[in-house]
């Protein structure tokens, strides 16, 4: 919300939630038990939603908690518990050292790219004046500035999304049902 000089509490909370989300993500990929991993991922998603609030995206933050932390992760936990994945033979699932080496190499390359990108200057040609989006939200509320373009400029994409969800529902039901005819 604030532009230019950030107050200390803003910067503090931004770094706090960012670091907690990264630490939770690290714990998530290293946990052996799928349930513990899923719960750490939920924690990451909550921290990301706090970051969204700090970045002027209150509606997206609410949707993040409802859809990601609420719906999607509950489906994941439901499947983990339905398949009963807690027994010891399923727990030791990390790959061998060759894969770990390859993964570390990919991680190092990606992180190097990150640092190269943060050092580069973002093009300012299309940038809005500072504080523009925040003022928009302050004047029109948290939802109207998103709903406007969603139902005008992106109407086709919105309608296609509904078809996608229909296809996903049908696909999930067809894939998930038990075969009775062909054993």
């Amino acid at each position, binding site marked *: 919300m604030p532009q230019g000089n950030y107050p200390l509490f803003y910067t503090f909370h931004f770094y706090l939630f960012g670091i907690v989300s990264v630490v939770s993500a690290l714990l998530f990929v290293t946990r052996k038990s*799928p349930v513990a991993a899923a719960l750490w*991922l939920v924690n990451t998603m909550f921290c990301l939603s706090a970051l969204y609030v700090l970045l002027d995206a209150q509606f997206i933050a609410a949707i993040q908690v409802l859809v990601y932390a609420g719906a*999607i992760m509950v489906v994941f936990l439901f499947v*983990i518990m339905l*398949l009963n994945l807690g027994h010891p033979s399923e727990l030791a699932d990390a790959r061998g050292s060759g894969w770990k080496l390859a993964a570390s190499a990919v991680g190092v390359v990606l992180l190097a790219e990150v640092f190269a990108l943060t050092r580069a200057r*973002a093009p300012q040609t299309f940038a809005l004046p500072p504080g523009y*989006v925040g003022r928009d939200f302050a004047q029109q509320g948290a939802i109207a500035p*998103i709903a406007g*373009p969603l139902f005008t400029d992106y109407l086709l994409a919105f309608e296609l999304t509904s078809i996608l969800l229909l*296809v996903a529902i049908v696909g999930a039901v067809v894939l998930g049902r038990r075969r009775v005819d062909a054993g």
Partner: protein
Amino acid sequence: MLAESLFFSAVLFTIGVVGVLTRRNAIIIFMCVELMLNAVNLTFVAFAQVHGVAGQVFVFFVMTVAAAEAAVGLAIIIAIFRHRQTVNLQQINLLKG
């Protein structure tokens, strides 16, 4: 806060990639993909502050696709589990002759 957001987003994405490469549990790999989608969403929201609110609309679409993907993907995992009694990807080699 743009640079910091991009930094956190990239670190989260990297953790997701490393998770996909190092784990063998299909569900955990799937959750790593969700983590990568979340990291990209953070980038979208951070850029929405600079380049207009369209970035937040895109996050909306990404979340819808993620929800659809989770539903279908978990249904596939359940179907595979019924055949193989495992979600360990090293024991699922249907295409190997």
